[in-house]
Structures are given as structure tokens and as C-alpha cells.
């Protein structure tokens, strides 16, 4: 098999594993603040191998997450494409920053990501365009914290995976 195709398949496999982890259902409040591993893994691949991961991958997994999460079709796709673009546009800078700083950037990104998901696309509330409230803000904060804590683990795990299987 062509090396490039094999690499892509391995990247898709890692994203699929992340999707499986994301689809696990928790029976408590953790369900609403658990980090999105698909997004974290996607960010990693965009930084590590930007020539192997692109818009198509982001779009495909975004739509799959839309289906899983029952959100407006295309919303996660749109956000994943935007994040992919940002990561690829600034991956030179992002790659050389220390891991703690990367975690902080992930924290900011995740706050924005979660807040955009609260937009009232279906016009269910008459006076508001964003359904976010105090409780949602706290959840957003926890979500961003958990994502930034998870980032070093995702980072080193994906790096191990890349070195062991993709060998770049």
C-alpha cells in the first residue's frame, strides 16, 4: 500500500477511536462537560502532519459528530473546518510553543467552541440569539479546563501512535 494512503488510514483510525471514546455515555453531569477527543486529536494531526489531514477529514468527522450529538447538521462540520484552517494557518507558531502554552490556547479555543454551540440557530427563544446562561457558562469553563488538561495526554499519546505506526 502507498505510504501516504496508509498514513491517512491510520490517522482516520485514530479519529475513529476518538469518536468511539466520545460516544461513551455518562450517567451524570460529566456527560455535558467531557472533552471532545475527536477535536483534540484533529488539532494534533493538523499540527503534526498538516499535509496528511485537511478540510475533507475535518468536514467528514464534523458531520459524524453532528449525527452523534444531534446538533444542527453542518454546525460541527463548520467549526471543525474553521479550527482546522486556524491550526494549519498557524501551525508553525503552535508547534514550537511549550505544551503548557498549547494547553492554554486549547482552553481559549474550547470556550469559543462551546459558546458557538449555544447559538440559537433554530430560533427557539424569541428575545435571544444565544441560549447560554450562567450554568452553561460554568459548564463551558469546566469543559475547557478538562480539554486543556486532556491536551498533554492526547498530545503524547498521538505522538507515540505517530512514531510507532506512521513513522514520521
Amino acid at each position, binding site marked *: 500500500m502507498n505510504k501516504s494512503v496508509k498514513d491517512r488510514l491510520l490517522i482516520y483510525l485514530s479519529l*475513529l477511536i476518538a469518536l468511539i471514546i466520545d460516544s*461513551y455515555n455518562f450517567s451524570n453531569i460529566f456527560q*455535558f462537560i467531557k472533552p471532545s477527543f475527536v477535536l483534540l486529536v484533529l488539532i494534533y494531526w493538523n499540527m*503534526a502532519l498538516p499535509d496528511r489531514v485537511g478540510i475533507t477529514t475535518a468536514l467528514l468527522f464534523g458531520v459524524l459528530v453532528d449525527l*452523534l450529538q444531534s446538533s444542527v447538521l453542518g454546525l460541527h462540520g*463548520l467549526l471543525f473546518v474553521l479550527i482546522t*484552517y486556524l491550526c494549519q494557518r498557524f501551525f508553525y507558531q503552535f508547534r514550537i510553543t511549550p505544551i503548557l502554552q498549547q494547553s492554554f490556547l486549547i482552553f481559549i479555543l474550547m470556550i469559543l467552541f462551546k459558546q458557538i454551540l449555544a447559538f440559537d440557530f433554530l430560533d427557539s427563544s424569541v428575545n435571544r440569539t444565544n441560549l447560554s446562561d450562567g450554568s*452553561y457558562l460554568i459548564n463551558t469553563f469546566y469543559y475547557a479546563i478538562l480539554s486543556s488538561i486532556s491536551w498533554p495526554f492526547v498530545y503524547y499519546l498521538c505522538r507515540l501512535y505517530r512514531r510507532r505506526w506512521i513513522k514520521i
Partner: protein
Amino acid sequence: MLRKEHKVSHISSEAIFAIPTMKPAKVLLSLVFCFLLILTDINYKSSEILRAYGKDMLNPVIYIAKTPVFIFNKVIDFFNSRQDLRFTINALEQENLKLKSINSLMNEISFEKGRLNSLEDSIEDNQDNYYLVKKKFLSTNDLKPVMTVSVNSREEVFAKNNAVLSEKGLLGRIVSQGLLNAEVMLVQDSRSLVPVVSSTSRLHAILQGSGLSRLGHLNNIKKSAEYKIGEELYSSGLGGVYPSGYPVAKIKAIKDNPDNEFLDIQVSFLQSPINQDYFLALRDPSNE
């Protein structure tokens, strides 16, 4: 040279400056495609047709996610003592009794409906209209919670707008159906509007959710309305979407703000899907 003086990639050792950035035209095209998907979904509700079938395709993913817990539980079960197993059986029997009590509760509610002249069929007939559904996934967005359910028996078929009930009352309705899965829009969803009637004052209203673990509110209630705190709200069946007579929520607070021409009535929902796995769906005979 010290590492501090020469910044290198922490990720890979390949020549990263040789990698071309992605083409803006491709990004733009993808964004336009996503916007088209969103607009189609908002205006024509395209995802209601696609989503449950999409979830049928994602079924293996959900099953694989549950496999480690399933194996862990099996191993724990295996190493459990006989007494522990007896406890488990007791718990399962208790759950079974609970489900039976749900059925009997539904009978009681049906009886009450009859008393209110809104029931047409007998209790025995209604029993056949219930089928058991199992929670598979709850979306992570607590403002717009959507629950994915599957049926236990292959003979059961979902239908759109079938009401889903817990032992405490109305939980939501099926909005998208696939072959194996269906999506349930919960009453706590900010898009959900349920026609309700209050238990003692007998006033009609529209109940709107604000998200899971949040208070809902009654829309456009005149200041002269005599609602009472603690009053239970039952589905009125108006509009023909939800069946009538099921408890939905309880009035938590009534605020009369001078700058608002309507009363601000906050309600707490009686049921939540977070800690529960099994629910009853009510088949609507008029839709078949």
C-alpha cells in the same frame, strides 16, 4: 547551541517549512457547503430525516464504546460472590417491579384522563400501546438535549411524535426515526413547546424548556391568571402532538415584573433522563 536560542518543533523532526498551507478557496468552499447544510436543516429540517438513519450507521461505534464497560461488568459479575449475585438479582427484580409500577402508573393516569373526559379507549387497550425503549446516547449539549433510544424488541417500530414517558411523567417525543434508533426531543429542550393544563386552577398554557437541569417557563401568561406555586402541570393534549393527562412539571416560582406585561412563571420538570436507562414510548393509534 542552547535549546532556548533555537526553537525547534516539539512534534516532529521533519522540515515543516516545506509544507504548503491549505488553499483558501478550498476552505471557503467547505464553509459554504457547511452553511448550506445548516440552512437546509434550519429551513427544511433535513436532519430529522437523515439523523436517525445516520445513527443506525454509527451503531457499531456506540456499541464499541460500551464494550469495555460491558466486559468490565462481566468480569466483576464473574468474580462476585453468590450473595452479591443474589443482590444483583434483587436489584434487577426491583427494576422489573419498577417497570411494572410504571405500567400501573400509566393505567392510573389513563383512568384520570377518563375522569376528565379526554380518554377514549379502555385501560387494557392502552397497555398495548406502550413499548419499552432503551437510552443509548444523550447529547452533550445540555441546552438542546436530544436522547437517542433503541427498542428492545425487533417487532416494535418507532413512529414520529410518539410520546416518551418515564415513571414520573412525560419526557419528550420522537422527532426522528431510523431502523434501529430514534431521537427523542426532551421536554427540557429549549425548542420544545408542550401544551399543559394546571392541576388545580385548570388553566391552559404553553410550557417551554430551557435545557437540562434548568427551570422551564410558561409562555405569555396574563397577569390576572391565578396560578399557584407547587401546582402540577399536566399535558393537555391540545394540538394533538402530546397525549393528554401526563404530569410534566411543577410550578416553582411566579414573578410579577412591572416591566413585563406577562407573568414570569418558572417551573421545574418532574423527570430527567440522566440517571435512567429505560423508558416507555406511547404509540399513537391514530397515526397508524
